[in-house]
């Protein structure tokens, strides 16, 4: 080993203590365990190399992200057969090359050490690993004789050919029981859109709007299709800079970007909307003839003073918002979870949508999407009522078999639903999943799924911006585990048993999908041959579909507002806020996302409770103190984060943490605010009113440092972030108005 000896003197020289420059590099000759390792690692060559494969050089393949329902197109870099990185597909009109942190972290789901690699079957009360064949035989034995509505599927949002295949499976069994459950959904607004516009999911044109008024629609963070909206928002803010106003009880990422942020008492958003309409009609002489007389009567009741009394929003703020909307047309008014997850959610959402009708936005910034032309492929949008419906059936003993996929209801269901007890009444429960979680712990059979990056599929997002897109999901690598199957393959295998004649000729889901794609209407295939159409769609990762959009209607229903009475025992409102990253908790097992600080509070790895400084002072708590938040359903404990961006009557706790059984990164970390949600539903749609819970707060006396990136929220006059007025910006920094 001549040339490699290192002694103490050389080491000190290397560390800069010796100082003789001639020896400056001698420390770099230090033998390390790695450089001396010879013959410790194996290296296998290809037997026959693929022509396009060069070891060490990545190849990018297109697919579709499955981390939420937005359906962003992705490109994945594959090297030596391994997927190393995903980025947005620039051709996708949904994300134009962008990808959010949840999409980026998709790799961590794929390579997660907690992934299930073998099926589990319950034997003597506990789940044990068995072969796929054994588990499958058990599923066959227990489910083949079950007919009709005694078999149910409980899934998250599904779309594309997997949804179509699931419908066909349900038809073959004779069951209508497919419950599509999402705790973070936009169902109330969809119902209002359906009634008022004639279309549940129209297009919102942020790029055409000159002012946006958002009632808790966190479109930059967690609402519907955030990556797309962020792009449109960038257009909205550049050039002739649009004005963003956000009204919500707790500041979201969108709220933090607003020109005017307004804290509102939860559940009173509809009243504020009517108050704004009142100012528009009385002060700004906006033409109210678009509204029916009953609606104008309802609006007339809500003068700014009355609005202030109910909502807590100052009268001059109401006038200010109305003035912005009047001056800047067309505008866009949106509603999100904090506005409509209440008992009066539908009325609030209707009053908010009414503003679009009054301001003439319908047809300008709210357009018809026309709907995806192949109906069986459209997204089955999730609701939380679906969970209650499923639970009710299970409770009656009406279900013999339940298949659960893409949802973790035992974790996300509120405690009052007693979901676990009701699920236990289903005789045979099959969970299809990548990971063991709270729900799979109750299953009789757990079938391990291949990851989205190992599976074939198609995806049609519920929200389709600008142009219709069918996302193509292709495997980016061979499965990591031999005994996993894609969701499509499981559905196909189940169908083959029930309808052999139609499906026997497909060896696997790939064969089915390829055939099904070539059966799409000729107009979608743009005159291509089967092979050419398939190849180009897979290569591009998406299929663009043009549709003709009809005009939207603009009906205005009864706008009578009901607001909940104050509850003296429980003086505070609980806001279980959605968090970009952990989402409803499904991504809590991805360490990048646990480690990524929340965009607003900058807390990581834990839960926290946001309190207004005034409230914190009243309660005598400071940042890091643990408080007990108690509703009529139970209590949780979390550390206080004192923050001005929250209504003084509100305590906001993010969703996503509090797992008991979801792998090494998620378990025993933080609390789940959904557990203490009161038994309230939206009166019109039956959606669980997650924001309608009243709580009381008590000090626990415990305190420790809140895990939080960054110290102060204030610049303390140091101008760390400089600001200029829009006029100065246009003159000096550019923008489209500059010649």
């Amino acid at each position, binding site marked *: *080993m*001549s*040339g*490699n000896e290192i002694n103490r003197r050389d080491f000190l020289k290397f560390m800069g203590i010796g100082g003789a420059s001639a020896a400056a*590099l*001698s*420390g*770099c*000759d*230090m*033998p*390390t365990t*790695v*450089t001396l*390792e*010879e*013959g*410790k*690692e*194996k*290296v*296998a*060559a*290809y*037997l*026959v*190399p693929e022509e396009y494969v*060069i*070891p*060490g*050089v990545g190849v990018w393949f297109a697919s579709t992200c499955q981390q939420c329902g937005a359906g962003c197109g992705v490109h994945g870099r594959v090297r030596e057969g391994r997927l190393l990185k995903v980025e947005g597909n620039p051709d996708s009109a949904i994300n134009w090359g962008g990808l959010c942190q949840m999409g980026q972290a998709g790799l961590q789901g794929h390579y997660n050490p907690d992934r299930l690699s073998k099926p589990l079957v319950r034997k003597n009360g506990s789940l044990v690993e068995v072969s796929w064949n054994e588990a499958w035989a058990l599923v066959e034995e227990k489910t083949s004789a079950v007919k009709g509505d005694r078999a149910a599927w409980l899934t998250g949002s599904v779309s594309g050919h997997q949804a179509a295949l699931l419908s066909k499976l349900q038809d073959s069994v004779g069951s209508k029981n497919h419950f599509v459950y999402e705790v973070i959904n936009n169902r109330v607004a969809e119902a209002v859109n359906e009634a008022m516009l004639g279309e549940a999911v129209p297009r919102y044109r942020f790029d055409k709007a000159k002012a946006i008024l958002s009632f808790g629609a966190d479109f930059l963070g967690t609402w519907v299709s955030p990556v797309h909206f962020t792009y449109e928002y960038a257009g909205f803010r550049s050039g002739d800079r649009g004005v963003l106003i956000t009204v919500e009880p707790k500041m979201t990422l969108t709220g933090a970007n607003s020109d005017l942020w307004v804290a509102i008492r939860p559940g009173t958003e509809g009243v504020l909307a009517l108050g704004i309409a009142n100012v528009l009609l009385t002060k700004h002489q906006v033409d109210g003839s678009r509204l029916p007389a009953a609606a104008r009567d309802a609006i007339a009741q809500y003068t700014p003073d009355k609005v202030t009394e109910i909502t807590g929003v100052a009268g001059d703020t109401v006038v200010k918002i109305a003035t912005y909307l009047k001056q800047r047309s067309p505008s866009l008014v949106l509603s999100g979870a904090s506005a409509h997850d209440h008992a009066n959610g539908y009325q609030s959402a209707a009053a908010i949508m009414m503003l679009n009708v009054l301001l003439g936005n319908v047809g300008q910034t709210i357009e018809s999407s026309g709907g995806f032309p192949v109906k069986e492929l459209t997204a089955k949008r999730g609701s939380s009522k679906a969970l209650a419906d499923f639970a009710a059936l299970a409770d009656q003993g009406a279900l013999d078999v339940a298949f659960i996929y893409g949802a973790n209801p035992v974790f996300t269901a509120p405690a009052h639903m007693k979901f676990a007890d009701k699920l236990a009444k289903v005789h045979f429960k099959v969970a299809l999943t990548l990971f063991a979680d709270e729900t799979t712990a109750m299953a009789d059979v757990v079938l391990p799924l291949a990851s989205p990056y190992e599976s074939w599929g198609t995806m049609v997002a519920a929200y389709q911006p600008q142009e219709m897109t069918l996302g193509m999901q292709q495997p980016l690598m061979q499965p990591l585990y031999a005994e996993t199957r894609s969701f499509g393959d499981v559905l196909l295998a189940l169908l083959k048993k029930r309808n052999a004649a139609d499906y026997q000729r497909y060896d696997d889901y790939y064969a089915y999908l390829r055939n099904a794609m070539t059966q799409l209407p000729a107009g979608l295939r743009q005159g291509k041959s089967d092979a050419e159409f398939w190849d180009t769609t897979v290569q591009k990762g998406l299929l663009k579909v043009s549709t003709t959009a009809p005009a939207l209607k603009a009906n205005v229903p009864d706008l009578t507002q009901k607001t909940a009475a104050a509850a003296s025992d429980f003086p505070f409102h609980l806001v279980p806020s959605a968090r970009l990253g952990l989402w409803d908790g499904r991504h809590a097992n991805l360490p990048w996302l646990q480690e990524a600080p929340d965009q607003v509070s900058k807390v990581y790895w834990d839960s926290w409770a946001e309190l207004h400084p005034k409230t914190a002072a009243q309660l005598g708590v400071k940042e890091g103190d643990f408080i007990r938040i108690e509703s009529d359903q139970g209590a949780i404990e979390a550390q206080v984060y004192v923050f001005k961006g929250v209504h003084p009557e509100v305590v906001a706790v993010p969703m996503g943490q509090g797992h008991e059984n979801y792998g090494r990164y998620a378990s025993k970390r933080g609390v789940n605010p959904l557990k203490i949600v009161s038994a309230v539903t939206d009166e019109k749609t039956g959606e669980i009113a997650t924001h309608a819970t009243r709580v009381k707060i008590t000090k626990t006396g415990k305190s420790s440092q809140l895990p939080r990136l960054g110290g102060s929220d204030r610049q303390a006059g140091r101008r760390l972030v400089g600001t200029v007025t829009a006029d100065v910006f246009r003159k000096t920094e550019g923008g489209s108005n500059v010649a």
Partner: protein
Amino acid sequence: MDVQAEVPNAVPPVGEHKGDKVPQPIEFPHDIHADKNGINCMYCHTYARRSKVAGIPPTSKCMGCHTVIATDKPRIKQLTEYWEKHEPPQWNKVHDVPDFVHFTHEKHLRRFIFDNEGMDVSRASEVCAFCHGDIKKMTVANKVKPLNMGFCVRCHEKNGGPSDCWKCHK
């Protein structure tokens, strides 16, 4: 056993290392191929000029010749067995750098061979020998150069290679 390479516009790196003999599933004789038969290193390690890794030749490449050449030799019979079982041999890695070191064969070959005026590609083995030693004379390769940071940095200093930390550490 430093090679007295006279590659134009290049100063070979200095340093020696007495590596262990690493056993391999088939004792591949580099001397017969590269020296006796004069096969260019890059004929088998085809990826070296295009990628960061030189690449272990695919089994199909071996079989390209050995379905007809020397088929009666025991090592070729062993190779043919692998081929027929559809299993590439699992070689033991002799030359390696730590995972935090980013080394690209392609850039080094470009500097010393392809973009090097007066250098003939048929003499590639002399450049390979900078870091791998005179493999032409070996049967089973063993490591004769230290491949540690001092070895690399001294060569970079002499040959005008980049000295930014992030060129190699990323």
